[in-house]
């Protein structure tokens, strides 16, 4: 997708995150866990962009890198035209007000010793934006009411353990919202919640996105949820994006053999739908020893000789849909 500069909120270019891993206790040979390897993507303002992939594909590492929790090995990430990775600590701290995160597990991401009021007010305190006590309270109330915890005052003195999973995730969203960010990175925000409350949280995120003009980077392994929620999907495999495109194209007409296989095995909650499953053999190779050439070739059902030699780049296959496969037919 080609975006103009004004439309782009986040532009990640050639991001690499390698973690050093020593072979043995005394070994001097350096090996690396190549968690993220030359990943580029752009996120438009107001868009819900989704990174999807199996565990270990690097999607959470990308999120952590964008938030400054992990240092990138190389690459750039422009947020509103400013490269996040070139900023000083203080500059980053200031800019981080605009990028907030929602974590997977609301049972662990909320401090059990803090009241709901303190949890939601903490980002204001940390960033010296609290102002007068009245001002602080009114911002906390606004945030809690936005996530549907009303009347907000009745939750002020509660502790996380007194709330249900869905309510806790609402508190986490309220704490992310209180600074009025432009971008929210949501790492599997509903996967720990029961099915019956998932839809409510997703709908809340959609509504908040419209109301506050938020942009989301949504990270998930669940394609069925992604399909119902996001605008654009990038599918990751072993540290790289193998396919990217608008949700409808990627889900209904996937190009990359990995995406096809992944979509084919998602169970369908309908007994009469019998689809052919493309079961891949084995498991994802170790990110320490990434296969040569296309990193998917060891498990790919259509791999040819060339696939083990050349690493394919993301190329445009259809309007709005890109894939990294040397075997694909370009329309």
């Amino acid at each position, binding site marked *: 997708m080609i975006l103009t500069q004004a439309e782009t909120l986040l532009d990640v270019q050639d991001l690499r995150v390698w973690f050093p891993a020593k072979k043995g206790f005394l070994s001097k040979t350096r090996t690396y866990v190549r968690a993220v390897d030359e990943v580029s993507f752009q996120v438009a303002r107001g868009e819900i962009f989704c990174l999807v992939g199996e565990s270990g594909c690097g999607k959470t590492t990308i999120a952590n890198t964008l938030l400054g929790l992990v240092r990138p090995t190389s690459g750039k990430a422009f947020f509103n035209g400013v490269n996040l990775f070139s900023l000083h600590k203080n500059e980053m701290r200031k800019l981080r007000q605009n990028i907030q995160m929602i974590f997977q597990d609301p049972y662990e991401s909320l401090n059990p010793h803090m009241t709901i009021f303190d949890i939601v007010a903490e980002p204001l305190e940390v960033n010296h934006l609290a102002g007068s006590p009245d001002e602080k309270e009114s911002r906390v109330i606004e945030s809690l009411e936005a996530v549907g915890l009303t009347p907000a005052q009745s939750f002020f003195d509660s502790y996380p353990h007194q709330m249900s999973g869905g309510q806790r995730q609402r508190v986490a969203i309220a704490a992310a919202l209180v600074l009025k960010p432009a971008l929210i990175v949501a790492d599997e925000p509903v996967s720990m919640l029961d099915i*019956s409350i998932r839809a409510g949280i997703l709908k809340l995120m959609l509504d908040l996105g419209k109301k506050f003009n938020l942009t989301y980077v949504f990270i998930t392994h669940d394609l069925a949820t992604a399909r119902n929620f996001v605008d654009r999907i990038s599918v990751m495999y072993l540290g790289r994006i193998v396919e990217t495109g608008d949700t409808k194209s990627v889900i209904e007409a996937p190009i990359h053999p990995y995406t096809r296989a992944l979509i084919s095995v998602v169970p369908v909650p309908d007994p009469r739908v019998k689809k052919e499953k493309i079961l891949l053999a084995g498991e994802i190779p170790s990110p320490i020893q990434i296969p040569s050439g296309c990193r998917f070739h060891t498990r790919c059902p259509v791999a040819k000789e060339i696939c083990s030699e050349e690493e394919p780049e993301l190329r445009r296959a259809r309007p709005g849909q890109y894939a990294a496969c040397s075997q694909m037919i370009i329309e």
Partner: protein
Amino acid sequence: MFSSWSGVQKYPGPSHSLIKTHIHTQPVYGGQVANPPAVGSMPESLLTVNDLKTEFHTQQGVAQAVRGVSFHVHHGEVLGLAGESGCGKTTTALSIMRLLPPTARIVDGQILFKGKDIVTAGEKEIRNLRWKDVSIIFQGSMNALNPVKNICEQITEAILLHEKVTYAEALERTKSLLQKVGLNLSKLRSYPHELSGGMRQRVMIAMSLACNPSLVIADEPVTALDVMVQAQILKLIKNLQDELNLSMILITHDLSVMVDVCNRLAIMYAGKIVEYGAVEPIFYEPIHPYTQLLIKAFPSIEGPIGQLRSIPGNPPALINPPPGCGFHPRCPRAREECSRSDPRLVEVGTGHFAACHSVGG
């Protein structure tokens, strides 16, 4: 986990007359005799659970985790127990295995396995039954396997504890089991931490089959796995089930996983079964409002993109469950009587049962 089951002798199996006497026992719902599900096929029941009630003693009070559950499992069928967290599905499984934690107690009901009541059986009898006749696949394979023993030791130990065989025979069987579940024999001496989640789950499956049980309980066997590995493991479970004609109870919160594997489903809510029957009627003609809403809440990768619907409210606390129907505080069709009396399961179609006042329950 097996070291505590030492001193086990070969289980002779219940005598035939016992099976005959007990298998015709009518299931009882909520203390009243109801239409027993699938009357005609009663003699085929391998496991019959009658009005099971299990409680946990907690600091806050007594939590009624299972509040009168009745179902049966026929020979060679897979029964799915579905429901959200805290609905009592795992407690039901642990009650059947008699592996409840010390704070929990079965307070009422019967669990008849091949006609023998597990609830009243002595500890020795239970040890003979566990693994030999009924085995379980746990969700967290990392926690269920012993981290300081390699997988070969763990599986042979299970066999040696329950059967009078030599070590060589046990080792042979272990090897064939590992092959059966698709594990390379080079992993024979691996420790659990050296294996991936999918491989560990395969080891758990191999171990559950070690003594040729007639009933396998799989508690969320694929929940922690990636979707591709999940598909591999489900296929394995399905193939083994066909090949060995296993009877299974599959416990999961994910209805879409049930569709491929199960013959019948029991939907649980707040410690009770609210709907029970064959898979298709439950999916296409769900009767209970909870089942209807649960199915609507599931996102699908196929078909039109529908508006996902959540169920307002939260499941009730089981320390002080609501009077009447457990679902009435969240039910869009709740009436006055729903908060007064608890509906019983009534037959709404052939072998299809629902517990809702709207169908006269």
